[in-house]
């Protein structure tokens, strides 16, 4: 019983002290590499849900709407 109490207290003490520790606020800087948040590709979310081929097809179709020589035919 005493062992459990000591273990719990030790655990609480450890967690309490861990709470007092400081998060590193220094950026781990690597020159020439992007330091910001990661971005997802445009086809990752809906409506393409990761289907890159479908997204590329949609973009190709959309781009051809700029070709008026094709559009007027």
């Amino acid at each position, binding site marked *: 019983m005493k062992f459990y109490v000591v273990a719990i207290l030790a655990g609480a003490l450890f967690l309490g002290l861990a709470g007092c520790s400081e998060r590193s606020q220094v950026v781990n*800087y690597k*020159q*020439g*590499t*992007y*330091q*910001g*948040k*990661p*971005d*997802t*590709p*445009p*086809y*990752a*979310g809906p*409506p*393409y849900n990761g289907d890159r081929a479908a*997204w*590329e097809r*949609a*973009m*190709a179709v*959309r*781009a*051809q*709407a*700029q*070709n*008026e*020589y094709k559009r007027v035919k």
Partner: protein
Amino acid sequence: MARMKFLCDAERCIECNGCVTACKQEHDVPWGVNRRRVVTINDGVPGERSISVACMHCSDAPCMAVCPVDCFYRTEEGVVLHDKDLCIGCGYCFYACPFGAPQFPQMGAFGVRGKMDKCTFCAGGPEKDGSPEEFAKYGRNRLSEGKLPACAEMCSTKALLGGDGDVISEIYRNRVTLRAARGTTSGGGVPWGWDSAYGRPSVTAAGTAPGTTLPAPAAPAPSGGKS
């Protein structure tokens, strides 16, 4: 897929500023920030040419090279974007950019320089696609919706083309070939306006439609006139 690019056909741009308006409206861009603008050379002089300019999403972007906090990244599609949470608003990118693309919001009477803002090729930024946070910081993410940049899709004369570099260069190549085949004005004038933009098949070698050739300039054209 090749890299995403803009291509502006200076023969067709009529300086309507539709692209500028479309960009402003689409992304709710604040006053003082112009992600896109139309530059006219020799404004008001016959032979003037206009071009719509924004971030050209360079393959070897100087803004990316000079940024002291490395907040720029290039997506797989070749779009140059940046993280506004990291930007310190130093303005180095503005000095480095040959197109003057980076913009800084001028808030307050004394012009406080905020975080850099620029054309995103309608690809948002490093926030969840389509989220309100992304819209607030970077504007609408049209690419994730399967759409092309609003400025290019909005262009009435299709002077501004945007999209996969291979596709739009093919469209442009086809256009140039077709309008050259239709013929332009004869009579010594430099083809300009409708003639160089679309060709003019009604003009024969015997005569020139009135008002279609450039008058010989009486005085040297003003240099570097911009608007």
